[in-house]
């Protein structure tokens, strides 16, 4: 019995020692900074050097946590047991969070750098008065192909993917709205359609793509494309920028007939503890130099218009990443379609994944 009690004490002591070590390790990151800012963001979606710079400039300690889907983020914030000061959801999710009363209003007059945002990214339908969100990045949905296996120029439109040539060679992004949306656009419908009939037709068309699909995956797609595991990928522009940097054979196309235009915006959740720091961070990220540095690191397009002049000319003039107005006109922004129809999209996509052979 004595031995047993000693074992328990020893384990507890070891835990205490390690807990001390953990707090020491986290302290050494802080070094006398008094308050912390908790950011909830997508993985690898900010330049770590910028976070360090922010800490230095303002004295706040940044805790950076990641989520892998808008929905996972929503679940964790709605659950209420979390206290994130900044979160970075996509546009349809902002609508949903607003409706669920999870967001705090943002007073843009307190943001001295707000003026740098290009007007085309303001007053969008998901936040018409810019009361709840501030643009962070924007981008498109498109096709990445490898010129070792696919002749350049042979893929320009969504319908090209259905070609028999590409059997078992497409990696599709694991997202119901994007996959269904792609099929809807290829049929000439709106990506926000609520019509049951059109959705069913889109599913039928998507099912026909089944034999060409190699896998339905999310973030891992980058790795596979870089390693030449598959010649074609359907994914977002920023992912494309990243893979193209590591594999020169990869190219990105936004089909001109239309695609998704999306925004990831910064919001302040209701449960935030340190709003002052949140404002400081938003303002910091809107500063043109910082926005440019972040865009260069992450690879997505920045909504801070002035920042473009800090970007290399090659990036700035790349039509695939900063599409001209003529293409932008055809791009569609997702709307929150309410739980019922969203469910319908998800169920149909699940059905597709089940039968995709």
């Amino acid at each position, binding site marked *: *019995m004595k031995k*047993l009690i000693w074992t*328990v004490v020893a*384990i*507890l002591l*070891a*835990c205490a020692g*390690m*807990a001390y*070590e*953990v707090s020491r*390790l*986290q302290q*050494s*990151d802080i070094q006398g900074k008094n308050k912390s800012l*908790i950011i909830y963001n997508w*993985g*690898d979606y900010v330049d770590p050097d910028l976070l360090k710079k922010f800490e230095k400039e303002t004295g706040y300690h940044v*805790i950076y*946590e*990641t989520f*892998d889907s808008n929905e996972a983020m929503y679940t*964790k914030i709605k*659950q*209420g*047991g*979390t*206290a*994130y000061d900044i979160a970075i959801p996509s546009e349809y999710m902002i609508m949903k969070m607003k409706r669920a009363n999870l967001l705090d209003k943002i007073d843009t007059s307190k943001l001295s750098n707000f003026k740098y945002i290009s007007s085309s990214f303001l007053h969008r339908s998901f936040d018409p008065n810019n009361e709840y969100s501030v643009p962070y990045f924007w981008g498109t949905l498109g096709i990445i192909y490898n010129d070792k296996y696919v002749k350049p120029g042979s893929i320009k439109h969504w319908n090209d993917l259905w070609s028999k040539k590409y059997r078992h060679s497409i990696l599709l992004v694991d997202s119901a709205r994007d996959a269904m949306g792609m099929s809807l656009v290829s049929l000439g419908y709106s990506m926000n359609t609520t019509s049951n009939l059109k959705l069913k037709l889109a599913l039928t068309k998507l099912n026909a793509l089944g034999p060409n699909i190699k896998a339905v995956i*999310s*973030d*891992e797609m*980058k*790795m596979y494309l*870089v*390693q030449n595991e598959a010649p074609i990928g359907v994914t977002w522009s920023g992912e494309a920028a990243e893979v193209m940097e*590591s594999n020169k054979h990869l190219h990105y196309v936004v089909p001109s007939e239309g695609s998704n235009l999306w925004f990831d915006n910064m919001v302040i959740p209701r449960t935030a503890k340190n709003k002052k720091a949140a404002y400081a961070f938003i303002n910091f990220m809107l500063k043109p130099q910082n926005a440019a540095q972040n865009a260069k690191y992450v690879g997505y397009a920045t909504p801070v218009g002035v920042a473009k002049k800090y970007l290399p000319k090659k990036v700035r003039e790349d039509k695939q990443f900063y599409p001209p107005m003529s293409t932008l006109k055809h791009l569609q922004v997702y709307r929150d379609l309410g739980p019922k129809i969203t469910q319908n999209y998800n169920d149909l996509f699940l059905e597709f994944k089940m039968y995709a052979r």
Partner: protein
Amino acid sequence: MKNRKIFARLYLYFILIILYVPIFYLIYFSFSSGKNMNKFQHFTLAHYQTLLQDNRLIAIFLNTVILALLSSLIATIIGTMGAIAISRVRSKKHKQTLLALNNVLMVSPDVIIGASFLVFFTALGIGLNFGSVLLSHIAFSVPIVVLMVLPRLNEMDYSLIDAARDLGANNYQVFSNVMIPAILPGIASGLFMALTYSLDDFAVTFFVTGNGFSTLSVEIYSRARQGIDLEINALSTVIFVFVLVLVLIYYFISTKRGKKARGIMRELIK
């Protein structure tokens, strides 16, 4: 007869090779200067250096160990008490009901455990952090401890207890001097299994973790989605060597101490 022996040996070697190929693959690439596990570039220790400087990862690793130790310790205490209580239940029906309830978590898939705990914490308004993860780990470790301790209690020689009582031992003395030593191997293997469960868990933690707390498996999941980072390979090499050393030490102690420790081992393998 001889051929059969050779075949048996070859077959076992084959199984072992299969079991270890992915692990050695990870270790091999932890020394590659490249960025992924695609092609070995040239030898480097750079990934180990980054690992040593990565305070966040080390903190998460320590957190994982703390979580495993604390949860298995508490689960062992609750589970042992539960097993003793169950062994004392006289009605067969009650006993079976208790055991059935005990086994529910044993056989439930992780996804359901994780989801139901998430629902549960939400209903009670418990925040998602270290506390919620610790509670969940304790919760799914208790039944295995009960299952490890119970057989020992059933095998226990009750005349010993009567004898101790006749010799004037009080309740506490009977408990600490007779009962505990008799069931100690069961308790030890229960603790050990609980530790393994906790260290190995991904699905449950994935559901119930939140704000500022992450375990190694969740961190690996979120990191590796960005493409495999060889720093993770370095970490798994360190863990593997660490476990290997522990096992070897354990083995030598157990062969020295002989029977008692081997009892624990046998219990574990069950």
